[in-house]
């Protein structure tokens, strides 16, 4: 049997047996299931959460402000003076009060008193006070319908059309973003678990001194290829497990939770690109990890090398806001094409807007070129440094050796 294949099988079997790999693979579906079950249970126990009535007092120095219509959530009570209002507040009859000063009509100033420390006025309170004032100001001059329209001027509903003018199947919004977001997160997790195992494995083989025994049986190229592919297959399996469980979970969630989650769909083109970028991304980082693994004196040291690249890979998540608000921004385009940030960026952009084909093509081409180039470089590094124990070479030394070999 081909030696590369033997190594591939061995690495795959060892990885599938790793406790951390199994935990990682099962953790995501289990956590998601727990969340769904937990949501159901809470809903089952509590039913609709009880509506708490907010008692708001007001002191009217301006005159003419009355309670016209009580709402279900907010109850207004008139207070004769600030002192009495404060007493009522301290005794808990009201939770807060506001003062309408004499010159309110010209200044618009409203002073609100509360016992709570708060970041800013709660939205519902702000709305309630606003509506209270509007209905008093417009009282008698307009019909109740007009007053209500002034209070709630629009109930907005936006519809995205496709190029034929029909209603597009993908309507964007939160659910369109959350799927790619979760998926890119999982993608990065899987890429880094697998290539992390590669790094760790190489480090261990170096530390255990198995390396020389391996190299006395196979060539460095066979070793690196077998390892990279073996762990890649493990990572792909992990992704497949996640995707399958995501389908089940989405079905389970939409039957109970509905709303946002029911629209969780993973479109086919998204899946295909996801797999392509998983493979390319994994190869890219695995080769880098292999290089780092052969350079470091120990597994821990190699891991430190690799942190830079991990940070680079997840950096598009820092631009998440920019990508969300403006998926076609120049910076986002650059991130799409730069090989180290491409996998995550593409996943994030996918859900928001169509990515022009030329950008995808450039991005994939650049990744392939980088992978091939790095493979040559790392194979050289591999041969030179794999059997160097005890010390980590300095950058200058690496450059010198590479020039010599």
């Amino acid at each position, binding site marked *: *049997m081909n*030696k590369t294949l*033997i*190594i591939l099988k*061995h690495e795959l079997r*060892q990885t599938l047996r790793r406790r951390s790999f199994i935990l990682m693979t099962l953790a995501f579906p289990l956590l998601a299931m727990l969340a769904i079950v937990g949501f159901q249970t809470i809903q089952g126990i509590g039913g609709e959460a009880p509506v708490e009535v907010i008692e708001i007092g007001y002191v009217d120095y301006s005159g003419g402000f009355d309670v016209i219509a009580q709402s279900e959530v907010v109850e207004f009570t008139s207070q004769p003076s600030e002192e009495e209002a404060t007493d009522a507040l301290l005794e808990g009859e009201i939770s807060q009060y506001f003062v309408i000063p004499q010159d309110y009509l010209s200044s618009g100033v409203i002073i609100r008193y509360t016992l709570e420390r708060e970041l800013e006025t709660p939205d519902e309170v702000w709305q309630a006070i606003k509506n209270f004032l509007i209905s008093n100001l417009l009282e008698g001059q307009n019909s109740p319908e007009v007053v209500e329209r002034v209070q709630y001027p629009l109930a907005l509903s936006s519809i995205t059309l496709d190029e034929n003018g029909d209603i597009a199947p993908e309507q964007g919004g939160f659910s369109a973003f959350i799927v790619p977001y979760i998926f890119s997160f999982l993608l990065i997790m899987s890429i880094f678990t697998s290539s992390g195992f590669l790094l760790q494995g190489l480090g261990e*083989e170096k*530390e*255990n*001194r*198995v390396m*020389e*025994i*391996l*190299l*006395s*049986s*196979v*060539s460095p190229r066979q070793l690196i290829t077998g390892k990279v592919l073996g762990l890649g297959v493990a990572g792909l399996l992990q992704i497949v497990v996640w995707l399958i469980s995501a389908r089940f979970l989405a079905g389970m969630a939409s039957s109970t939770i509905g709303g946002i989650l029911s629209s969780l769909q993973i479109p086919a083109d998204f899946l295909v690109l996801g797999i392509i970028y998983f493979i390319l991304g994994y190869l890219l980082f695995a080769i880098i990890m292999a290089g780092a693994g052969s350079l470091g004196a120990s597994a821990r040291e190699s891991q430190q090398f690799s942190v830079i690249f991990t940070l680079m890979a997840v950096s598009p998540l820092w631009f998440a806001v920019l990508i969300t608000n403006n998926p076609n921004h120049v910076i986002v385009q650059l991130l799409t094409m730069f090989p180290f940030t491409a996998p995550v960026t593409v996943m994030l952009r996918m859900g928001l807007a169509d990515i022009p084909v030329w950008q995808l093509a450039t991005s994939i081409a650049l990744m392939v070129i980088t992978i091939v180039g790095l493979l040559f470089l790392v194979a050289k590094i591999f*041969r030179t440094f794999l*059997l160097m*124990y005890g010390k980590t070479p300095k950058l200058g030394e690496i450059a*010198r050796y590479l020039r010599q070999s």
Partner: protein
Amino acid sequence: MDKKAPAAAEVGNVTKAYGSKRVVDDVSFYVAQGEIFGLIGPNGAGKTTTIRMMMDIIKPDSGDIHILGEKLREDTKNHIGYLPEERGLYKKLTVLDTLTYLAALKGDRVANSRIEELLRRVGMLPHKNKKIEELSRGMGQLIQFLTTIIHDPQLIILDEPFAGLDPVNTELLKEIVLDLRKQGKAVILSTHQMNQVEELCDRILMIDHGRSVLYGKLADIKKKYRDNSVLVDLEGEPGELEGVVGSEPEGRYLELMLDGKTTPQQVLRQIVKQGVAINSFQVSTPSLHQIFLQVAGKKDE
């Protein structure tokens, strides 16, 4: 020297430099099938680098290496068993899995019966399902040795094989090495422990600072470096001996220096004639260690 069968290994004018330092400098030797060949020298002499080049782990800067009559190819690795000086095994793998996997990497699907037979030979059969990390150091070393010969290689290279072994296991290993020679295998024994080499090797190559300093049959080398003296243990003092230019007590022995024209036999005849009782009489041959020190021009540590 007879060279009808292709040499197990043939190294011709091999040189390897790291930077400006020549780690191996124009070294040549051959190893015949069915012999134990000693590759000796102090630490850092270039033994391991030489071996790594024979294993195609490192490329030589110049020179030729032939294994079993062929130039180094990827396949040649399958016919060599190599026990590196820096060695270890996967800690989490069982003994059986380790042997199977490493044999498979040599392109050999080894039958379980062969693995079990080898394990029985070293008394490790009861431990075959244990993980490597559960074994004692000595046991681990034995398994390591078995991985070297599991695929029945024609050429076996052992780099410091006795390091970390207790006397019992050392003897066991020697026995197996001698057995391998009997089966016609070539064994290269690289070590700085001279006593092992004297016991086992047929021919040797001594390298120092990357250069070959001694090469040939062990017996020839020892003859060449023999001191001109005899060691005697006598009851009482000998009288005047013809051809002896001096004497020096050497422990319970007395070392008699000969003038170069007189043979040890002539001296023995004189002592017998004098009627002095002889407990022992031996021609002094230097140990390989002494030869090594003489050649390398170094002080004993």
